[in-house]
């Protein structure tokens, strides 16, 4: 029997506010434990939460960017459970009447476009961080409440996703939007972007849903893909063996490559939500919403379309270049200085991204500027250096941020296009390879490439290939 997977994602994104959602403590990452806490986020008796306006603004940006309907009077609710990282014994979240509902995000997998619905986006506070003891401390956990109260948005998608590839594409699309809006760092290792998935399978063609499991602990795109692939296969096997999928939460264990049941925790899911009595409904006036809407930047999908239209780039290039706002900006600035979009795109997608990916860096954190890349490309066009040497020069420019012209001078990489200078070398090459010369003259013309290669070797790649070709043909005829 053929099966299809049905997947919905729950994504938590930490908002990049300066202070926490309900108090003035800093949200900075990596500080000494329990130094960014106060009576409010420690859950001391008698304190009252006061809502951070910017957190609401950021959540609204995401809501508008994903075409959600905004509730102009959303409510906060208490989600009750006991856990040491939750000082109050409840998390302030939203349940009925979330901030925003019914949006969508566009994804593209293997050239096919698809809309993934967004069920809701709501605001909530983050919990603290638990560090589990090791060795002599293995009977203890250690609690740091610096993160407790940091604003999060939870984005819940519709069960519209049908494969791990689509799930990864959905998370990437949402991450790109969050980054464009500059409302979340989206650092999955540090946990500022987290993703859980609801997964079920059903025979292809079936319209009702199978029993789902919730998969957690996938803190990278690779883990998301691997965990979903595993979980889908596991569920299909259970059904094929005549068993039933149990509704439960499962943790992805990356070291073993499996999902593991967290049985026995079902009762903990009785959260007994009720309206938060300490907070009033969240008013969103029409004017504020309009102001936010007007300030939204061009989003990745729109930008990619424009790149295809305006610069005549293939959709693939446009997708790669617009995945990062800064990369897109870099491209456009480069094209302004050196108006050959496809050439610029090729260089960015090969050389520039190769270096950036190797260092796991964003273009804005590198010493490469549009100006430097544009001057390098001009040097190639002017024939000062060959395209091949250009790559060597690029590596140096990328590493040092030096002017390409200087690098070329310092390293003596200027292309030799002077006929007289090359003539001697060409003659020398032919003299040292008499056998090949004879074969060539007998009709084996493909050997021209061999001779060019020899000249290049002798000139460390600096010879102008066109001139070398001409000289060789003259000498051999």
């Amino acid at each position, binding site marked *: 029997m053929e099966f299809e997977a049905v997947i919905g994602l729950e994504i938590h994104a930490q908002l990049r*506010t*300066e*202070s926490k959602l309900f*108090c*003035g*403590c*800093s949200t900075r990452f990596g500080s*000494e*434990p*329990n*130094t*960014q*806490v*106060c*009576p409010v986020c*420690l859950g001391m008796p008698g304190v009252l939460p*006061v*809502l*951070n*306006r*910017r*957190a*609401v603004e950021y959540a609204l940006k995401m809501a508008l960017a994903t075409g959600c309907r905004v509730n102009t009077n959303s*409510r906060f609710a208490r989600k*009750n*459970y*006991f*856990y*040491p*990282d*939750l000082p109050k014994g409840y998390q302030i979240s939203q349940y009925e009447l979330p901030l925003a509902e019914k949006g969508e995000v566009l994804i593209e997998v293997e050239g096919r476009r698809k809309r993934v619905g967004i069920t809701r986006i709501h605001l909530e506070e983050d*919990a603290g961080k*638990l*560090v*589990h*003891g090791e060795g002599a401390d*293995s*009977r*203890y*956990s*250690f*609690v*740091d*409440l610096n993160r407790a109260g940091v604003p999060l948005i939870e984005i819940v998608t519709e069960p519209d996703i049908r494969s791990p590839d689509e799930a990864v594409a959905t998370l990437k699309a949402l991450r790109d939007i969050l980054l464009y809006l500059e409302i979340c760092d989206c650092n999955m290792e540090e946990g500022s972007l987290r993703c859980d998935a609801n997964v079920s399978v059903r025979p292809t063609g079936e319209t009702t849903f199978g029993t789902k499991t919730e998969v*957690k602990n996938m803190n990278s795109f690779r883990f998301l893909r691997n965990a979903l692939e595993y979980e889908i296969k596991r569920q299909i096997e259970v059904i094929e063996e005549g068993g039933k999928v149990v509704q439960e*939460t499962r*943790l992805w264990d990356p070291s073993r490559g499996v999902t593991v049941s*967290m049985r026995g*925790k079902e*009762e*903990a899911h*009785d959260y*007994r939500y009720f*309206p938060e*009595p300490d*907070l*009033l*409904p*969240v*008013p969103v006036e029409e004017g504020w919403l309009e102001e936010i809407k007007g300030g939204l930047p061009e989003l990745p999908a729109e930008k990619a379309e424009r790149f295809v239209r305006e610069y005549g780039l293939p959709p693939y290039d446009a997708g790669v270049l617009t995945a990062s706002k800064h990369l897109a900006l870099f491209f456009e600035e480069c094209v302004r200085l050196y108006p050959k979009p496809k050439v610029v795109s090729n260089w960015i997608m090969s050389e520039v991204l190769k270096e950036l990916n190797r260092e796991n860096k964003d273009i804005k954190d590198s010493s490469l500027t549009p100006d430097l890349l544009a001057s390098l490309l001009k040097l190639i066009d002017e024939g000062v250096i060959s395209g091949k040497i250009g790559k060597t020069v690029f590596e140096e420019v990328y590493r040092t941020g030096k002017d390409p012209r200087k690098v070329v001078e310092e390293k003596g990489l200027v292309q030799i296009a002077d006929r007289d200078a090359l003539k001697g070398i060409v003659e020398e090459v032919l003299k040292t390879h008499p056998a090949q010369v004879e074969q060539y003259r007998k009709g084996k013309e493909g050997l021209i490439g061999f001779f060019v290669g020899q000249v290049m070797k002798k000139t460390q790649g600096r010879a102008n290939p066109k001139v070398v070709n001409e000289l060789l043909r003259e000498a051999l005829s």
Partner: protein
Amino acid sequence: MGITREEVRHVAFLARLELTPEEEELYSEQLARIIDYMEKLKELDTTGIGPTTHPIPTPNPYREDKVQPSIPQEEALRNAPDKERGFFKVPRIIGEG
């Protein structure tokens, strides 16, 4: 409307309360009375009246996104029964909430 002993035990577990059999008995009666009272409230005709979680229509006060000083670490940990290297120290927890 009755509340079973099983329901009392469930609610007690969620609240992390340990009850004696006598208390379970007592609370099942008391909780039943509270629920009965809610049933009585349901008799009111509330057609056309929205959920009134907050009876007074005051605008929600917002706070500007400004960092205020936090309290010192020693102060934050002062009430903790156990602590170590700036952390609250608790019995090991595995799993999730």
